[in-house]
């Protein structure tokens, strides 16, 4: 298995970066919102303004109500309520507009948020499909998965709730402040000074709590990671009666999580009462100062004005508190977005190949391109001088003096040369980490070579379009990896436009037809969870059929039968043998019995080919292969 030697993801660094937000993340996130949803955002913006105006208007209305209507009416003998009714009716109209616009922006924003999330998800997946294999080597499955779950989740809250909340809160603050200025500039200045004080206080608390929230996330990740590792190995724990030890270590981590969680929530929880009551204090002070001013008739303040001003003061503080309450959510969301963008910014798998794979037929002894499938493929090779060349795809593969390393300066293959003529079977044997799988990964360009040349039918594979190169190679891997869908769909992965007959034919070739027909739904049986309802052998047969259906001239079989017991292997082996006929085949096998009949066997050791030849030749040489074969040497 090549997994062991590949560079592992720097997990510690990943965790360490948690909670840190890269610069420009917010801008990029907002671009997602504005790019595709410009019209919606304009509507949202207008509606937020309308609803804010209605809201602030409501507060102002109470002053008018008391000062201009109720107080004068009190002094009249026969109060007439007509004008009051009119005023209230006007207010009702404004409120209706407020409610409607509020509904509109809530709805549009929520749907837009879902749209943005969908765009981000889709972009993320599109990007992921284009990332080089190297990315998957260096990131754990859990890490990649969490971009789609945890990270995206934090964004939803932020876009659909925090964002409009912040916009409307700032609007309210501005509108309220204008009204306050209008009522009394002097008192407004007082309020501003005091509010700044409140903000400073909240800011300190938010900073503290977000620091501990980051710590909490970290501890949570540690505990979850530990739980996952231990429970995955629970059976081993039982066998070694290691339960008490496992509990001890868990308790330590769990206690740490408790401390962080408690501290983070403590600061977050006292934020509200602190801000609220500072607001109350402000209210009292404004009331006292206002009264003094009104009594002394400073700046023409009436008592009614003070009353409305006091209401505005409350209306001014509320949105500010709301925003500070949202800050934790925003910080978390930005951290999530930052991780998502990090993945999106990964370098794509580059493909500058220009030689393409086309269907061809022979007309007048010459190879001509055609639309329909003829069973003959050709490489369409445009040259610099504008001429076109067609080369028939035969499966002649040549590696010459290839060097390769997963990390720079750490070569795992040294000077490897392999020649496979059309129809030949070439086998690789050697210890784990000797480089067997690596060689096949170079042929299909999962990785690019450091030095040397690989040619396919005489064409340097760097010139061939990656997709076309891979289409011309059939792969059967040790890990079968079937996908959710019917058996038929799974086989058709090898050839998208395959007919039912072709599917059945491929299944027959792989010895899979019989067992498929025995399933209640035959080819339409739904596979879920990597085909868990099938046996290992059956899954392998389907994966062989999947590789066979496209009738590729070259096949790569990487340890395709190693995890199957010997009796099942027989059935699979028959399928494989039929499949190999008339193709160039590269086989990697653990059991030497499967490679005996190869045209040539390459014995690899530490990235070098140390012996090559047919089975009989190698046995005669009495070298490594002979030792391997007779069991005198370790093969691992």
């Amino acid at each position: 298995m090549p997994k062991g030697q590949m560079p592992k993801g720097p997990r510690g660094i990943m965790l360490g970066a948690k909670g840190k937000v890269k610069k420009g993340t917010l801008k990029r996130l907002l671009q997602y919102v504005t790019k595709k949803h410009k019209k919606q955002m304009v509507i949202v913006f207008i509606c937020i303004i309308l609803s804010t105006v209605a809201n602030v208007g409501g507060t102002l209305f109470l002053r008018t109500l008391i000062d201009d209507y109720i107080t004068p009416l009190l002094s009249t003998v026969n109060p007439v309520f007509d004008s009051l009714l009119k005023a209230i009716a006007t207010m009702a109209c404004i409120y209706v507009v407020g409610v409607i616009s509020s509904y509109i922006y809530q709805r549009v924003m929520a749907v837009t948020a879902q749209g943005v999330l969908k765009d981000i998800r889709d972009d993320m997946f599109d990007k992921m499909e284009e990332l080089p294999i190297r990315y998957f080597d260096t990131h754990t499955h859990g890490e990649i998965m969490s971009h789609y779950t945890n990270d995206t989740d934090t964004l939803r809250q932020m876009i659909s709730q925090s964002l409009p909340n912040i916009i409307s809160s700032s609007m309210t603050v501005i509108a309220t402040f204008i009204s306050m200025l209008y009522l009394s500039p002097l008192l407004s200045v007082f309020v501003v000074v005091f509010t700044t004080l409140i903000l400073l206080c909240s800011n300190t608390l938010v900073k503290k709590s977000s620091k501990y929230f980051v710590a909490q996330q970290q501890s949570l990740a540690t505990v979850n990671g530990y739980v996952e590792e231990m429970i995955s190995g629970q059976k081993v724990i039982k066998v070694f009666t290691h339960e008490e030890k496992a509990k001890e270590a868990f308790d330590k981590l769990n206690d740490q999580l408790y401390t962080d969680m408690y501290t983070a929530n403590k600061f977050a929880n006292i934020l509200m009462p602190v801000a609220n009551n500072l607001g109350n204090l402000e209210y009292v002070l404004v009331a006292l100062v206002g009264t003094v001013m009104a009594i002394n008739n400073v700046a023409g303040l009436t008592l009614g004005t003070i009353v409305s001003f006091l209401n505005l003061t409350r209306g001014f503080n509320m949105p500010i508190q709301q925003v500070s309450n949202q800050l934790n959510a925003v910080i978390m969301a930005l951290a999530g977005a930052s991780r998502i963008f990090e993945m999106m910014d990964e370098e794509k798998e580059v493909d500058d190949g220009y030689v393409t794979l086309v269907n061809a037929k022979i007309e007048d002894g010459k190879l001509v391109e055609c639309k329909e499938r003829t069973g003959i493929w050709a490489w369409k090779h445009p040259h610099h001088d504008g001429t076109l060349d067609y080369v028939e795809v035969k499966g002649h593969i040549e590696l010459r003096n290839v060097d390769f390393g997963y990390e720079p300066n750490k070569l795992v293959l040294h000077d490897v040369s392999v020649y496979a003529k059309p129809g030949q079977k070439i086998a690789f044997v050697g210890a784990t980490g000797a480089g067997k799988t690596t060689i096949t990964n170079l042929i299909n360009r999962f990785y690019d070579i450091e030095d040397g040349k690989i040619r396919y039918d005489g064409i340097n594979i760097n010139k061939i379009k990656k997709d076309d190169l891979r289409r011309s190679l059939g792969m059967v891997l040790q890990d079968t990896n079937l996908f959710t869908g019917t058996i038929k769909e799974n086989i058709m992965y090898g050839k998208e436009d395959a007919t039912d007959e072709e599917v059945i034919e491929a299944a027959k070739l792989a010895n899979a037809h019989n067992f498929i027909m025995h399933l209640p739904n035959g080819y339409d049986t739904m596979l879920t969870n990597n085909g868990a309802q099938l046996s290992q052998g059956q899954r392998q047969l389907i994966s062989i059929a999947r590789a066979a259906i496209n009738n590729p001239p070259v096949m790569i079989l990487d340890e395709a039968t190693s995890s199957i017991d010997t009796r099942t292997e027989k059935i699979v082996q028959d399928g494989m043998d039929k499949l190999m006929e008339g193709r160039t085949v590269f086989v990697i096998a653990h059991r030497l019995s499967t490679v005996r009949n190869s045209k040539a066997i390459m014995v690899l050791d530490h990235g070098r080919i140390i012996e090559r030849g047919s089975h009989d030749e190698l046995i005669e040489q009495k070298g490594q292969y002979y030792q391997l074969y007779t069991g005198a040497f370790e093969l691992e």
Partner: protein
Amino acid sequence: MLKKLSKSVREYKWAAFITPVFVTLEVIMEVVIPLLMANLIDDGVYMGEMNAALKIGVELIIAAVLSLIFGCLSGITASKASAGFAKNLRKDLYYKVQDFSFANIDKFSTASLVTRLTTDVSNVQQAFQMLTRITVRAPLMLVISVIMAININAELSMILLIIVPIIAITLFFILRYVHPLMEKVFRKYDDLNEVVEENVSGIRVVKSFVIEEKEKKKFGKVSSDIYNTFSKAEKIMAFTMPTMQFAIYLCIILISWFGANIIVNTGMTDLTTGQLMTFITYSIQILSSLMMISMVIMMLTIARASAERIYEVLIEEPNIKDKENPVTEVKNGDIEFNNVSFSYVDDKEKECLKDINLKIESGQTIGIIGGTGSGKSSLVNLIPRLYDVTEGSVKVGDVDVRDYDLKALRDQVSCVLQKNVLFSGTITENIKWGDENATDEDVQRVCKLAQADEFIQGFPDKYNTYIEQGGTNVSGGQKQRLCIARALLKKPKILILDDSTSAVDTKTDSLIRKAFREEIPDTTKIIIAQRISSVEDADKIIVIDDGKINGFGTHEELLKNNAIYKEVYDSQMKGSDTDA
């Protein structure tokens, strides 16, 4: 269910109980404050009475300080209670799982146990924090505000009687329609995760078959599904806020109109302008309390599913327990199976071992051969009592395994599982799982026995080499040998290797067996293998087929009289001669 879960509160009980008390005090202050504010306006500001204003102002400040204190205290105790509850819940779950037998673990599956311990606990914790604070706060606020409102003016309070039901009904309908949609959304998320998971783990297949575009389409479809369903839910949820606003505005308008009438008609006797303002404040408080209650209900419904999943684990009874006065010493490595039948699901139809009778003497080496699913692993799992027999009995050292103290039994019956796991930590740490008091020499000795010392010495950090989670940075064969060394360190009387040398080459395999013979002759060794070569020199070989013993004898005997054994032997010896 709640009773069982609430048991995990334990030492944080006082925090959990005192939080509502503080919340209550805080709420009372919050109700008093608007009242004082009204007084401040009416008796102070409006009258232009500076002294009165000052007096009420001071009262207000005192109330604010008290509110601040109670607010902070409730915040602190609430976070203590909820963090503590979560801690204990995780601990209880984890401890419970430690007590689980193999059968219990199989029932839940590892992945689901992990989710229950992580995501589900977080959900329940959030709900719990809500419960201690808001569940007390909102209804209390509602009741007090209603009382105060009626106190100010009973007539005007009638307006609330009309508006509150409107809100309640609207919220009820919103919840009712949104909930099933949200459940659907969660299911769609599962689908989405599945597609991603498949693509991440099968990326080589995706790239080899050039099906990126197809997978993108598949993902796009699930992604759109989520978008559509979620949008539908959001569109309904978007009614919540406007409904609230509508109710508040309606309240203000109605109160303004009727209030103004009352004020003017009674000449400020029944209702003052200040009271009018206060009344409006209380109305808004009543409505927002209702809103809070609806949000709590929404949260609780989400948490309910999680709570149920946690509950399932907590009530699961470990089905393998120590007997009273158990035997604590294993005399020797004799093993005896008497009429043993076994089924994983306690169903006679689905027995995977049928009527097994066996006698193995201390110190013997026994090989077991059989196809996948024939019952090899099931057979050996019964010896350290990883599962209990369905019928019959298994004896170790002449004592029924059910009579032993589990730890004593498993310390003497060392089992190298087929699906074995190394844990993150150094090689020494991993080996020492077998015996934490072992010296470095002991560790090296067992590693030599298991033919692991050589490659360990080849690592730059030797025995301090760090093994990554799941042992991904050593090869399959190296991992297997480390697992064998770990099992050897226990100095067991019985050693079971369940297909534990499949990735080790035949040469090393035979060296390991040779070391076993020479170094631990008194230990009973049971070896399950795919390869005949791994078992042919055993004292006796068991051939298992379809849950029954098909043959029991030496290599030579079986070759002569056992068809299955001969078939397997032939297929492995002939190898590729039958190919081509």
